[in-house]
């Protein structure tokens, strides 16, 4: 599964880890994150993330 990087602060969302503080269990692909999910590090919205190539 692809990792996605926050364009604002560099935080990397790793699907293998998920976002436990945000109620996102490990194994959740980025595409499955809710629309109102935000970067746990800086609060940037989902559309500020880019897939890491």
């Amino acid at each position, binding site marked *: 599964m692809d990792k996605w990087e926050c*364009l604002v602060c*560099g935080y990397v969302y790793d699907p293998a880890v998920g976002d436990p503080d945000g109620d996102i269990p490990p194994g959740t692909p980025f595409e499955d994150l809710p629309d109102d999910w935000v970067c746990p590090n*800086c609060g940037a919205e989902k559309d500020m993330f880019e897939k890491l190539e």
Partner: protein
Amino acid sequence: MRFVIIGNGVAGVTAARALAEAGAEVEAYTQEAHHYYPRPRLHELLTGEIELEEIHFYSPVWYEERGIAVHLGTEVVRLDTMAKRIALADGREILYDRLLLATGSRPFIPSIEGMNKEGVFTLRTIEDALAIRRWAKEAKRAVVVGGGLLGLEAARAFMVLGLRVAVLEQGAYLLPRQLDAEGGALLKELIGAMGIEVVLEASSQAILGNGTPPPTLGGIEGGLASGVLLQDGRRIEGDLILVSAGVRCDVRLAQEAGLEVNRGVVVDEHLRTSAEDIYAAGDVAEFQGRVYGIIPAAIEQARAAARNMLGEEAAYQGTIPSNTLQVVGIDCTSIGVVHPPEGEGYQELRKSEAGVYKKLVLKDGRLVGVILLGDKKDVAPISQLIRKGADVSRYAERLLDEDFDWKGLL
């Protein structure tokens, strides 16, 4: 339709991508030698926590796949708004149908004596970070002029490199844009406990120094920085001086071409400048008197500019300023209105305890701003509630409770 972009930073790349996704052919010209990279990560390059290959964001293939032609190391020297043409440093002239100015900003260089001594730096580009890294190997004590975001991130980096560090801030408290007096005082205390010296109300008068740099650095002729002289007469010693005193919009091209320029290139809600078919976005743009200088604004403006350039009417309504950083492990978040004017329906709720400062700003009961220092619990839901302008008035002081259920309000 020829879409040309000047600048390949956040705004430039974001607009290029949006235009390309709509099927447009895009050309971007940048004087940078490197493809786009996120500047907030330069302090990690400085310490060696990341290496050059890791700081780039998109590979050259990424641009090719999307039909975005990026001309690196190519400075644009003149803009002719009548002929709809730009002139490059190598003499070539490029025609455009729609042009985006995304030239960004440059570090502000205070006009104080000694700025040209060896060992004095600004930090904006990869080249800067690598030069500072080399110099830091021989240095013992860093002085950072400016206690804003960049200065504090750099101070941490110098500490990691084993230098002693002093930060000089001319204001009454650190991070003057993001914090308030109480938050600033707590941050100074927390940073001080980590070993970084902070001098407030410190206006620099001159950079001091003579001497010759060691042979490992080329033995260049000229003064070698040895410290900073303050206006009040105090001398702060240092053999590496970083000037992080803010940025200025890179408006030269626009100004010489006769566009309306204030502090930045003035744009309307469609990101149009005063010249036909020329748009601006990012650090260089000024919207309703504001120059944001932050990435979220660059992204939002660039996306709106691209849509308008494609002929769709997309209104940009400003950006809620948002900053998050970690300084030597200290979480610091500042979103929205944090310096509310007197009266006008604003209310501040503040709490300071056990190394954590929290301030919530409400306007007519709606959440409009937050400062959270020393903790980042609930930053994400609070940030969303500010974006929504959520009415939180009925919770009043409970909002400050450690265990307040912010997620429950979404």
